[in-house]
């Protein structure tokens, strides 16, 4: 049979972000496929070498567009490891609030993104409406809606504004009250269940072969392999939370885990606000001009748990004012490139956009 070549992207409403999936289809079945990344490449790793450690703080959030805070956290943790700084107690808790709010925001966006490939735009509108409230809270805390540059080496940039706890509580209460509604609109909706149940499987063997992490791995393996649990950073060891897992990884189980994580994040934020001590939020990094701030020699890999999996910065310093090399491990790198090449063939054309969406492929962190 003659195979027809189709492009899913870069300009395609089903594709989130600027990447292209090339599909060779025979009838409706995909026979061969691969991702064409690089449309978002802007030479980040080179750019970071050209900026000083301090200047990089403004550069790193731009690595991953949808979830900038994990970049800041990974970078801050890496430099703190190299410098041997102990971060003040309150800064840890503020960082956790920020990270979990960011996780809520990206999960809402990804869940609303489910509305695109399956066609339920009402879900998308509702999720984005709630996400916008998170952006408003971020704007109050940090002064920016998207790129916050708030988590910096040695703590956070400044203390939380007065009365923000009330806003956060209002928001998470309203989100929690509508949790069931979200489920009904999305993964309990019969017309969507027909699309996502028992398709787009991710078995355990594939997980270990590709190196998929995050929700994809947890929903296949059934064990709480979450960096927040197994190698806790900040103060994740002092809050109670569960890591939702499953051992049947179809698209629905993955989205289900995502929604359950929303509930866990809400609970983490509540505990953080409750347990947060008072005190300083940032240690000063030496005297003098920040451009002359140097970092001792060393190699460090600093991983954090992003919404899509293990996100890490590999940082090498030669003792100078500029990083010698910074490598970014994008969380969706394995499933985005090798996964699409190996495991998308065999699914149907209808499911291609859904595959990319539910596996959580995020092109900016693949291209960098």
């Amino acid at each position, binding site marked *: 049979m003659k195979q027809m070549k189709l492009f899913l992207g870069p300009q395609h409403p089903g594709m989130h972000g600027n990447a292209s999936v090339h599909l060779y289809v025979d009838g409706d079945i995909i026979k061969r496929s691969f991702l064409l990344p690089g449309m978002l490449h802007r030479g980040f790793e080179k750019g970071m070498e050209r900026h000083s450690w301090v200047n990089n703080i403004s550069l790193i959030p731009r690595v991953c567009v949808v979830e900038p805070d994990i970049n800041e956290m990974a970078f801050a943790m890496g430099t703190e490891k190299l410098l041997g700084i102990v971060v003040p107690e309150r800064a840890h808790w503020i960082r956790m609030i920020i990270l979990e709010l960011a996780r809520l925001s990206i999960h809402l966006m990804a869940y609303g993104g489910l509305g695109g490939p*399956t066609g339920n735009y*009402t879900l998308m509108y509702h999720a984005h409406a709630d996400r916008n409230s998170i952006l408003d809270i971020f704007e109050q805390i940090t002064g920016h809606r998207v790129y916050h540059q708030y988590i910096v080496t040695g703590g956070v940039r400044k203390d939380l504004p007065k009365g923000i706890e009330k806003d956060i509580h209002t928001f998470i209460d309203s989100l929690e009250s509508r949790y069931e509604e979200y489920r009904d609109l999305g993964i309990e909706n019969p017309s969507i269940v027909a*699309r996502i149940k028992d398709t787009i499987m991710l078995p355990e063997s594939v997980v270990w072969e590709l190196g998929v992490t995050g929700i994809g791995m947890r929903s296949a393996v059934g064990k709480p392999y979450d960096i927040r649990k197994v190698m806790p950073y900040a103060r994740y060891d002092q809050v109670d939370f569960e890591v939702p897992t499953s051992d049947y990884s179809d698209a629905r189980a993955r989205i289900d885990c995502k929604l359950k994580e929303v509930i866990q994040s809400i609970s983490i934020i509540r505990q953080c606000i409750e347990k947060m001590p008072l005190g300083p939020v940032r240690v000063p990094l030496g005297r003098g001009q920040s451009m002359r701030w140097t970092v001792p020699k060393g190699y460090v890999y600093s991983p954090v748990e992003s919404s899509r999996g293990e996100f890490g910065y590999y940082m090498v310093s030669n003792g100078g004012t500029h990083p010698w090399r910074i490598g970014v491990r994008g969380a969706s790198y394995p499933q985005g490139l090798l996964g699409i090449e190996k495991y998308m063939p065999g699914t149907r054309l209808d499911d291609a956009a859904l595959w990319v969406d539910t596996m959580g492929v995020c092109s900016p962190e693949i291209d960098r």
Partner: protein
Amino acid sequence: MLVNILIGFGVAFFGFVLQTSVAGVNRKIVARLQKRYGPKWYQEFLDIFKLLSKRATSHGWIFDFGVIMALGGIIATAMFMPITNNIVAFAGYDNFFIFVYLLAVGMLGMAMSASGSGNPFASIGVMRALTTMLAYEVPFMIVVLTIIKLSDSSSLSLIGAFQQSAGNNWFLIALPLGGVVGLISLMGMLGKKPFETYIAPAEIASGPMVEYGGKQLGMLFIMHEITVFIEVSLFVHLFLGGAENIFIFLIKYFLVYTALNLISNVNGRFKIDQVVKFYYKWPLIMAVTQAIIAIYFGWVI
């Protein structure tokens, strides 16, 4: 005869204006469902006239001719559509089967034109559209044939008048199973979710319309509006007892379209095989059951 043709064009124009306004109002209603404010109610008119004011790209004469054929076919179909019992352009020719056959001309024109664009997404979309058509026509036809058998006529205005004379015992109530089948089939005809498979922007980039822009797309939009008018009016006449006067028609029309639109907007989209399986399962069983009950046992509420 000339007067009839003029009235016919008037009906088609009325259908276009009516459906475009209703669609605009519906966009506002749906926006409220989605926590938004929504566009102006005449936004659809702006969109269509904007498209007509743009420059067009042609992909060969089949592409252009198909669009004109589709629009012409649909206008010709709309000319036969009765609006109330009395406003009928060609009295006595408003037979149900005329609509079935003439609608196909429009659809074929669009299919031809879309295939003429040479875009693979368009061919996939056309293929899906025809498959969907094949799926919903069967149960719908069974129910309509039952109605024709019961009312001893295949003229839309007569079917409407039959229901009115039976004390407003609409077929939606008289044949409950058939009414449900009719609604589900109407959703398929209108391309509402979950049967929106052949548009599917996220999968095949709006399917048959992928290569259209400018004037051709404007004409397709007009065609789409008139098609929707024909299909919803068909439903109003067949299942909701037609209309004695134009206000009743407007109210029924608006309610049917809005209800379907609201249902559509909280649903996802099926895959094409799921669409076919769906129609050949419950609607078909329900339609056949209804036909047997109504015709052989004569059990009509």
